């Protein structure tokens, strides 16, 4: 039970511990590790795409494989790299920031993680089961209905599994923030990262059901012969586009808002100043979320929805630039006159501001519906969304890695390697994508396997590919840094950055119960308040008490295995009805486990206060 006993254990015991854990920090770490793994796979796919495009009419890979590469690159990066890594940080950090001992539903948290992981594994299994999905990450019908083999089926089931997991995570975070804030932690005292977690979770709650429905319709059409997108029987393919983008556009805010939160933590911490315009930051976050639901059709300007619809969605799209601009100016004003420390985390934050602003500007350009007819489906769009997603989200992830690594793992990442990785990646990123704006304006369409010689596209593509390799190098340096730090890294104190929020008031890494006594929060940046008043540590809001902890459970893992088997059954029952047995077995396993879970009394356990006091020594 005590921490000393958990050290020096065999591999089997550690594995079992992670399979059954309901601790939000361990689950967060697993999210980050699994997301990083998928990030590497997605990065590899990106490099293969860029190698294919290094010269005109290249034949490095076949056209079919190229389609699979672009589909898997997009799907992996969005659903299985960026989203889970961010959810990992939310999981690990948000409860610490609001002064909670865990999330509201620890069991559901574990289930959400395993569903995501096995969704990702299922999707990637398609490589060995006769070909990956090849209809693009958007899988537009009717293309996705015509796609032969099982590729798109794996896409459907993989996303369905991981989507369910993400939805559970979202609900969990909202309940945690509503009910589990520490005494004195009012809503308007919450750190910005917790705020963006809250708003992001709301977006997840309302956006993912649309994806769920879209995937169901696609699944029924492909596997059970229904006619939603089959024009011969009266179906309508535009429904897929709407459902996908009703989900898809909020999804990009699901990615960027947590990154905004991360920068809103890092910039004040390393400027030694309170975040400028805290209230307006919160307001802008909500405004982005609200507007984010009313702009999805800007992905569909060229579909032919009519001038009225295009005009409405164009105006709404450009309106989003306003709250985003508020945020950019607030970050700049936070740094103004601050005592700025430039380290790896801060470098990523500084690089984010101009990079993301470029992406935002091209976003407004794309939002002009009439001009969009020119940009649509060219490399201009590719450049735009890589500027916002890499320049915003990936920079945010790297910044958060440097900033919170000491808190999560108890060691500080090496600064020299951190800076080297930053410069490699930063230069590589702009080399890769800046030139793509011009390639797009010159008419190079996206998703094409080859381009022709002598059309002025050769040099641009070569530069872009070289940049991609620099980004790859940067990522490798980050990996080496993580391994090096695990072996020889400097041990982290509780508060290595002299930071402002609650997570820095407890040891690194935090004990399983996080806070021995719940802290009393007296304002925004609670730790900083105590520091300026000379105390330097939080006042307890309660006497020493027994701490109630949830029990670990293997059930989430078994449930996920059940759904995983059922998904394979759904995919292959098209060929052979015997696979329906896998569907029945998998569902029985999953639902049976659910039943077992609800029949069992599980009151959790207590860590007694005597034990806590012993550990303090």
């Amino acid at each position, binding site marked *: 039970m005590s921490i000393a006993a958990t050290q020096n254990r065999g591999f089997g015991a550690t594995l079992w511990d992670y399979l059954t854990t309901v601790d939000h920090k361990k689950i967060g770490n697993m999210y980050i590790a699994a997301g990083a793994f998928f990030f590497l796979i997605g990065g590899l796919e990106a490099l293969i795409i860029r190698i294919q495009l290094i010269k005109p009419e290249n034949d490095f890979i076949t056209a079919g494989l190229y389609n699979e590469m672009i589909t898997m690159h997009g799907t992996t990066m969005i659903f299985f790299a960026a989203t889970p890594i961010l959810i990992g940080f939310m999981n690990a950090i948000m409860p610490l920031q609001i002064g909670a001992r865990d999330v509201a539903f620890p069991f559901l948290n574990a289930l959400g993680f395993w569903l995501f992981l096995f969704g990702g594994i299922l999707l990637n299994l398609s490589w060995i089961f006769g070909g990956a999905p090849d209809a693009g990450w958007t899988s537009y019908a009717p293309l996705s209905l015509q796609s032969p083999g099982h590729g798109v089926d794996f896409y459907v089931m993989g996303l369905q599994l991981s989507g369910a997991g993400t939805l559970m995570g979202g609900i969990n975070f909202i309940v945690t923030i509503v009910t589990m804030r520490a005494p004195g932690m009012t809503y308007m005292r919450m750190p910005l990262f917790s705020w963006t977690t809250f708003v992001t979770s*709301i977006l997840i709650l*309302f956006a993912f059901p649309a994806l769920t429905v879209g995937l169901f319709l696609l699944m029924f059409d492909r596997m059970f012969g229904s006619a939603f997108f089959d024009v011969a029987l009266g179906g309508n393919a*535009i429904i897929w586009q*709407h459902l996908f983008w*009703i989900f898809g556009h909020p999804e990009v805010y699901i990615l960027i808002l947590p990154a905004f939160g991360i920068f809103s933590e890092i910039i004040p911490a390393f400027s030694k100043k309170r975040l400028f315009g805290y209230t307006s930051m919160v307001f802008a976050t909500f405004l982005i979320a609200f507007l984010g*639901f009313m702009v999805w*059709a800007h992905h569909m300007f060229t579909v032919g929805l*009519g001038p009225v*619809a295009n005009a409405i969605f164009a105006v709404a799209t450009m309106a989003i630039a306003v709250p985003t601009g508020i945020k950019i100016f607030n970050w700049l004003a936070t740094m103004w006159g601050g005592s700025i420390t430039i380290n790896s985390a801060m470098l990523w934050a500084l690089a984010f501001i101009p990079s993301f602003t470029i992406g935002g500007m091209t976003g407004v350009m794309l939002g002009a519906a009439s001009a969009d007819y020119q940009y649509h489906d060219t490399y201009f769009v590719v450049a735009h969304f890589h500027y916002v997603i890499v320049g915003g989200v990936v920079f945010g992830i790297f910044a958060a890695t440097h900033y919170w690594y000491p808190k999560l793992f108890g060691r500080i990442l090496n600064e020299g390697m951190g800076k080297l990785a930053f410069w490699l990646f930063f230069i590589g990123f702009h080399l890769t994508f800046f030139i793509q704006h011009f390639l797009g304006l010159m008419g190079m369409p996206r998703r094409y396997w080859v381009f022709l010689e002598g059309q002025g596209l050769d040099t641009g593509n070569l530069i872009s590919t070289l940049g991609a390799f620099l980004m790859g190098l940067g990522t490798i340096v980050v990996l080496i840094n993580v391994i090096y730090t695990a072996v020889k890294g400097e041990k982290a104190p509780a508060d290595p950055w002299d930071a402002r929020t609650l997570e820095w008031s407890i040891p690194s890494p935090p004990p399983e119960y996080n806070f021995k006594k719940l802290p009393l929060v007296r304002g925004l940046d609670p730790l900083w308040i105590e520091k300026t008043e000379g105390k330097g540590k939080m006042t307890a809001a309660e006497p020493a008490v027994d701490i109630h902890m949830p029990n670990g459970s293997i059930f989430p893992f078994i449930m996920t295995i059940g759904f995983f088997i059922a998904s394979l059954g759904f995919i292959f029952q098209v060929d052979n009805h015997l696979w329906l047995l896998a569907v029945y077995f998998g569902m029985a396993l999953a639902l049976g486990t659910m039943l077992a879970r609800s029949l069992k009394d599980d009151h959790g356990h207590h860590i007694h206060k005597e034990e806590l006091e012993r550990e303090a020594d």
Partner: protein
Amino acid sequence: MNNDNMNIDKINSFQKQQNKEEMKKQIITFVLMIAFTVVAFAVVASGLEAIYAVPLILILAVVQVGFQFYYFMHMKDEGHEVPSSLIFGGIWVAVLTILTMTTIIWW
């Protein structure tokens, strides 16, 4: 075994009275809901023209669902501020979705 019957006596009689009055309101709610349903079916059975009938039955449905949420599900009670704001958020997205599917899907 739980000693239910003993516990009943121990419940504050004021509380019991309140529960009872609450239950009266619920029954009124139920009667109204059934009435709305009957009216909606009657409107359709009478063969009223679509241009009048459709808005009418839609309004009846919305009102009936309002009763369901506010009384049966207690959204009118204290402590339901956050849930109701999120339900309204969901309704907002739902309205946008349905509006889209009835207008801009390229018939």
